[in-house]
């Protein structure tokens, strides 16, 4: 390779030799093809467990005595939001003070009182007779304007509005207005958590806030105001977005629709089948937390549009007021036994319906103001429709089919050939059938179908029996991305007792040859 000829080589040629060597090196270094080699991979990818709580999400609470699991649910299906009690209408209050004379100027010395008035701010548009509210949120946006050529001091107090025990006041000092310009000040008072006495100045009224407004010239400023007949002082107070936490008073005889449409089984997950649902207890409760009497009428109960009959339907039920002691409440409860429906509510439920609908209505204070204006409501403890269910899992399952769909992101693993190895360990005492459909975003690839069976884990078995399945995969399939749809089917021959501890373990690993390419 090297035929060195050093004859006559000198200092100058030595540099040329180095240059030639560098050029040679660079030439070789630039003409590179991709480097490729194969590696044998065996890696675990997925290890997941499917349990009862995955099927019933967080709506289910299991208990077990070691042999039989019980699905016990006690929770609200729906809560009753009474908008008329929880939101006060926005109210605007304005005061406009103008002199009683024409011309001027009229000299007003420091410390003079121009207006001192005590009056109620009345909330309009409220059908109820409120005496007290505690606000969840709300605010007062105020604006004070003056065209008086002199300092104007304003003190607006609300003795019936307190926040953290402190009275809410507004103090504003406006400088003199010159050359006809109007001096003004605006701002906002946050009423979050405010407690408001709505009995007004007299203490016997309803829906009104006592206020005192004083306008004058400040005594501590040696300024004599020049007041003309066309001067004015304008005050506006805008009560906004007042959301009620607690309210007391008389709520009136209000008629409220009570309609509930509850999703039960998502048809995207529960494809079909039947579960023998035989609860030992199933009650529908209405818990009245209102400090007001109710007359409740349930008109209909339907499962996926199939109407049910029950002795309580259409019969008005008088529910007495809840007992409030401070912040503690003892609700009044009316209940109906769901096991008495015809046809059976749970037989219909066993067919995995999408929704359950309850239609009804309620009337507040059907007997009038029997409490003398002492109705009470806390928006954080609303009346609720509660399901009380206890279901021992000793049941029969017929062709129950569940589906999970997973998006598969593209995976760049060029030149891969191998297997995706699924290992299923069935801990349920029922036979499972599994179907996998892998659809690819790359339309040129045919969907991959795969079916497998996993035997039941029986009580006399001492070891798990994992079942392994292999799916051939390629880099093209991995790179495509797509969706993996897994459908599991379950069937029992007769009733089967579930302990509640059953689990299904799914493990996925990849084994194959990957050709690494370095470009």
């Amino acid at each position: 390779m090297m035929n060195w000829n050093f004859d006559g080589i000198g200092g100058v040629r030595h540099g040329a030799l180095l240059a030639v060597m560098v050029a040679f090196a660079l030439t070789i270094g630039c003409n590179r093809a991709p480097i490729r080699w194969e590696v044998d991979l065996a890696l675990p990818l997925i290890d997941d467990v499917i349990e009862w709580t995955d099927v019933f999400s967080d709506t289910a609470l299991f208990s077990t005595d070691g042999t039989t699991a019980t699905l016990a649910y006690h929770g609200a299906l729906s809560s009753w939001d009474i908008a008329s009690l929880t939101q006060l209408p926005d109210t605007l209050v304005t005061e406009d003070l103008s002199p009683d004379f024409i011309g001027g100027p009229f000299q007003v010395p420091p410390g003079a009182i121009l207006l001192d008035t005590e009056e109620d701010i009345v909330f309009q548009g409220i059908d109820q007779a409120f005496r007290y509210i505690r606000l969840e949120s709300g605010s007062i946006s105020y604006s004070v304007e003056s065209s008086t050529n002199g300092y104007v001091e304003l003190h607006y107090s609300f003795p019936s509005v307190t926040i953290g025990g402190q009275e809410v006041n507004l103090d504003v000092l406006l400088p003199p207005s010159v050359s006809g310009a109007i001096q003004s000040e605006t701002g906002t008072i946050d009423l979050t958590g405010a407690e408001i006495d709505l009995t007004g100045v007299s203490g016997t009224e309803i829906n009104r806030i006592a206020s005192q407004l004083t306008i004058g010239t400040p005594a501590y400023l040696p300024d004599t105001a020049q007041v003309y007949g066309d001067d004015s002082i304008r005050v506006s107070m805008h009560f906004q977005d007042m959301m009620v936490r607690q309210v007391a008073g008389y709520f009136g005889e209000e008629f409220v629709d009570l309609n509930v449409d509850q999703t039960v089984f998502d048809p995207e997950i529960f494809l079909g089948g039947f579960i023998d649902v035989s609860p030992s207890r199933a009650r529908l409760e209405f818990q009245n937390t209102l400090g007001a009497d109710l007359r409740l009428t349930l008109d209909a109960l339907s499962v996926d549009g199939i109407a049910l009959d029950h002795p309580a339907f259409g019969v008005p039920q008088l529910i007495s007021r809840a007992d409030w002691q401070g912040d503690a409440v003892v609700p009044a409860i009316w209940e109906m036994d769901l096991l008495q429906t015809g046809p059976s509510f749970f037989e219909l439920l066993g067919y995995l319906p999408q929704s359950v609908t309850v239609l009804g209505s309620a009337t507040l204070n059907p007997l009038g103001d029997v409490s003398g204006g002492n109705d009470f409501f806390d928006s954080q403890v609303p009346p609720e429709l509660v399901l009380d269910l206890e279901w021992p899992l000793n049941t029969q399952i017929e062709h129950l089919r569940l589906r999970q769909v997973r998006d598969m992101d593209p995976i760049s693993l060029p030149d891969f050939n191998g297997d995706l190895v699924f290992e299923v360990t069935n801990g349920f005492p029922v036979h499972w059938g599994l179907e996998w459909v892998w659809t690819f975003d790359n339309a040129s690839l045919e969907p991959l179908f795969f079916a497998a069976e996993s035997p039941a884990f029986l009580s006399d078995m001492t070891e798990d029996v994992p079942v392994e399945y292999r799916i051939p995969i390629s880099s093209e399939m991995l790179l495509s991305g797509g969706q993996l749809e897994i459908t599991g089917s379950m069937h029992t021959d007769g009733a089967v007792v579930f302990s509640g501890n059953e689990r299904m373990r799914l493990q996925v690993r990849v084994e194959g040859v990957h050709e690494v390419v370095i470009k």
Partner: protein
Amino acid sequence: MKHGANHTILFLLGLALLLIPAELAAQVEAGISVDSLVNEPFMDQWSATVWGQHRSNTLDHELGGILLRGGMIDRDLVESALANLKGDMGAFGFSAGGLFKWSSTRFWKETDARICGSIQGRSLVDARWTQEMFELAFMGNQGHLGRWDVLDGSQLRTTVWGTATVGLEGRYNNRIELGLAYRKVQMAGQIHTGYFRVNEDVDSLYVSMRADASIDSRAGLGLAINGEWHFIREEAPFAFHVQIQNLGWVVVPGGGPRYAVDTLLETSGLALDGPGWSLETLQSAGFVEDFLNVDTAGVSLQRLPGRCDIAMEYPLGPRSGWDVTLQIGEWMPLPRVMMGYRRAFGKQWQAGIQGVVGGWGRLRPAAWVRWRVPNERALTLFVEDPWGWGSSSAFGRGLTLRFEGL
């Protein structure tokens, strides 16, 4: 995670390949001090040396050539390289550069010392890997399920620097030089601790990694010292030489990126969804940032990859002798030892053969020849592993060319 391990080693190897100027090969300077045998009188001296070498204890030319030029790496080549490791860590080194040294004819002031100096430019590549790392990268993990793969100490670093120094040269060519060092660039990456294991049933994976890497792309400036001390006495039956090169530090202004990984994953597979390690979080944005820490390096003081050579020569007769040289430093994983026999042929030719061991490779031969040309000039050619120029099974080659004025 295996894929990640592949990328790590490939990144290291790729970086090496980018920085290796192909097969520009020649062996390191090593101080072929043949002058001591012929006992020339003092006179104005200069020498210009260029060299280049690459060496590995694992990668033979066939595998190295594919890594260099591209192509398909056959499994037999990988298994052969694996067998060559013999339980040691794999190593690859590349060194190239040029050096010009001179000394003045005039004495400095009233002393018997003369002004001398040198200018040089060098580049280095040092890569090391554990046997398990090599096997993971080039063969995969399926062949050794259940084994703990230890990745500790796998690393790659490369640097380019130069120095310009001046100093004084006294009797016996003893000299000391001090000057400026300019380091153009340096990159380094290292796995401090790393383990990988997949069990026999392929349902348990353990990966841990604590590693860092940095790229100092901004040039650093500093000081470097070169020194030589020669014990040459007519009454002594041997000669002894000590040479220190590039003992110095540079101040690196910082600003380059630094990467750090410190993570552990032990799983029997990822859950489909949920917090922590799951397919859901793995596919979510920002997942990598959770365990890859990236920041910017600050100003730092870094040492140059200096080297110390210790050599001894022993004459066996008026025209022959043997020599041994020990080289330490310059990122070599093991000290490099050269031992050989030399002989003069007439007044113009000298030659020698040597055995070289250590550095980045195992035992290999070397040979040199020196031709004293007219007009007080000499040309020396040193070839390390002469079979490396024609055999695909050799593990490196080296070439040094020196032209000197006597």
